[in-house]
């Protein structure tokens, strides 16, 4: 047992278990990095620390399914240390990171180094997604099996679509051979072309080159056809359109091993929010129409969309203070995942266990562990005040990326403590 591992007694919290779908007030007991008691302490338990959780929700730590950590190679945008601090400040105990670092995560050594660095930091757990093709160039597939052994939980192209379907076909065959999952952004590059915003009346008005919805639907159609041909498991990342969600709904009905996520931004924002070319609203995929956003919300409510991710992408000011089309895409998101998910739940009358499932137990399941409050589960926990409000002030964010369209917005739901491996790693 590590010297700093304490027996913790969390007292009188609102225990929300998204895995069991339950909500009770009570106590929770932690020892050896695990939950050892719910309601009452196990025999012989002596608490080193007692946390009074009166008025706080006690839930499994959040699992963010897509974050860019920028290290290695883009430390001027963010470091592993800064983003892990942001993760735990956002109640996230497990971060799935994308392979689009520089160099990209396409070699065992790099994956090992990343995991080692994150272990040394000892904040949130890091789950690397390996590159699907070498250098994300879409030409040669990577040593997936060895990368998997090194700790990669799945394989993806980040935001770079594979142009050559033959390569994607082979990659899916190869991945299926080992039972690996691919995380693919459904986007047909030739239809994106030089597009920068949703192809609709608003982009036309602003004179911004449009990315049509068919860029997404054609890619989904291709991917699902290749799934039928190869038996590969696929997770579709950041779905953005109503038409795309219809295809996913049909594929799921058919029984394909398909899951998908949506970003916090696309639940709340639409193309009209771009206003006068505000580059804070430049995203990949682009923010789509009100009807698409409404379809996203409906698909979250009915379970077509399995999970919500932060799509965290720390961007520095130099990357944002440019004309819209030249500005970097993305926004910081780790610290906004919880409140923006809660905002969706509130406005759609979704229960707390159901809402938290989208950002904890469901993505955890995909990573192979249970994010619940049962005895024996990991003591990766989040304590938050569901009523407390706060404002997004860039300087107060822990992430090195200060850019987000939610600057100045009121968030409801404030993280009080984050516990990872039985240790308090963040206290407000």
């Amino acid at each position, binding site marked *: 047992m590590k010297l700093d591992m304490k027996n913790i007694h969390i007292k009188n919290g609102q225990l929300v278990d998204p895995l069991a779908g339950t909500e009770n007030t009570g106590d929770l007991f932690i020892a050896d990095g695990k939950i050892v008691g719910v309601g009452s302490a196990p025999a012989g338990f002596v608490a080193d620390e007692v946390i009074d959780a009166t008025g706080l929700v006690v839930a499994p730590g959040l699992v963010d399914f897509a974050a860019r950590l920028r290290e290695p190679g883009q430390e001027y945008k963010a470091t592993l240390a800064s983003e892990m601090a942001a993760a735990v400040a956002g109640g996230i105990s497990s971060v799935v990171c994308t392979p689009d670092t520089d160099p990209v995560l396409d070699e065992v050594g790099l994956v090992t180094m990343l995991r080692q660095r994150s272990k040394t930091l000892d904040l949130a757990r890091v789950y690397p997604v390996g590159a699907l093709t070498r250098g994300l160039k879409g030409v040669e597939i990577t040593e997936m099996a060895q990368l998997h052994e090194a700790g990669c939980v799945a394989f993806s192209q980040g935001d770079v679509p594979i142009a050559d379907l033959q390569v994607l076909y082979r990659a899916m065959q190869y991945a299926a051979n080992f039972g690996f999952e691919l995380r693919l952004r459904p986007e047909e590059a030739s239809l994106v072309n030089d597009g920068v915003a949703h*192809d*609709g*009346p608003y*982009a*036309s*008005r*602003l*004179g*911004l*080159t*449009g990315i*049509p919805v068919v860029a997404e639907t054609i890619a989904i159609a291709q991917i699902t056809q290749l799934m039928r041909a190869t038996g590969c498991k696929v997770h579709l990342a950041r779905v953005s359109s109503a038409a795309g969600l219809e295809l996913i709904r049909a594929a799921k009905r058919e029984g394909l091993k398909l899951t998908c996520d949506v970003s916090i931004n696309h639940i709340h924002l639409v193309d009209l929010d771009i*206003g*006068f*070319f505000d580059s804070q609203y430049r995203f990949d995929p682009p923010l789509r129409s009100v009807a698409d956003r409404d379809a996203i919300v409906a698909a979250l409510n009915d379970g077509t969309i399995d999970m919500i991710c932060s799509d965290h992408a720390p961007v520095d000011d*130099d990357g944002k*203070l*440019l*004309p*819209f*089309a*030249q500005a970097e895409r993305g926004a910081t998101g780790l610290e906004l995942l919880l409140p923006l998910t809660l905002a969706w739940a509130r406005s759609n009358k979704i229960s707390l266990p159901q809402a938290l499932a989208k950002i904890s137990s469901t993505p955890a399941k995909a990573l192979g562990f249970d994010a619940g409050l049962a005895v024996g589960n990991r003591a990766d926990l989040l304590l938050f005040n569901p009523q407390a409000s706060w404002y997004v002030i860039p300087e107060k964010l822990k992430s090195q990326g200060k850019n987000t369209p939610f600057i100045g917005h009121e968030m409801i739901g404030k993280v009080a403590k984050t516990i990872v491996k039985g240790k308090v790693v963040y206290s407000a």
Partner: protein
Amino acid sequence: MYNPQLNAQGELIHLLTTEGLPRRVLHQILDKAAEFVSGGELVNQKFADLAGTSVFNLFFENSTRTRTTFEIAAKRLSADVSSLNIQASSTAKGETLLDTVHNLEAMGANLFVVRHSESGAAHLIAKHVKPGIAVVNAGDGRHAHPTQAMLDMFTIRHYKGDFTNLRIAIVGDVLHSRVARSQIHALSTLGCPDIRVIAPKTLLPTGVENLGVHVYHDMAEGLKDVDVVAMLRLQNERMAGAYLPSTQEFFKYYGLTPEKLALAKPDAIVMHPGPMNRGVEIDSAVADGDQAVILPQVTFGIAVRMAVLSIVTANQKGLL
């Protein structure tokens, strides 16, 4: 959403787009421009409106005609004018757009005239300049070319008197045209009841009808009984590839010939923002014909730019 072109009193402090400007402001520009025109010609006189003002023409994209007319306009108003062809200088060395602007601010700039290949560049600059400095958009990407649109409005008002009973057709590459977008917004605000766009589907922006225009793909239908035909320049680089099969085919179906023009009202005027591609979007017989007002447009362009520079400068100084 607040309008970054207007100050708290609703006065024009930048001209970035014709979209969202009150009708009052559009008329103010037209009326002010009229002060600089007499009998269809520029008043041959120098004005002091911009005396002591440093105007920087920042052209991040090539242009001879627009840059020259802005230079002439600023000089006629007694400004000190510097024109920078940025493509060949700072930004090529890696300086960002805003770095360039802040450097010129430090050199005492009072007004920036900006042309840039990216939509929204002028908005970005206007958002980041110091208080008291005006920005005039001289064309940004596909987004806006407000002074061109206003000189078109001036031309229409000069020949037709009023906007509220006109049928106007905008013809050609609307997709890539900042001029068309600015014309549509200005015409809508000025009360034009029937704005038409005529183009093949490949050259129309998605959802263009949401801008309040009627869409035609056929010249014969679209030009019927119109009062004004506003031709757009077809960028030759658009001809290759999948937008259009050839210049010949485009000319045959969408080029303005005397026969097609005959479908419009007999007294219809023909406008073109220039430079023209004769035999591609317009027949020489039309370009040089009685109904063409293309050269007066150029003259009015200087008056309108003088008006805009004068108004934004005065409002920035708080003198009006």
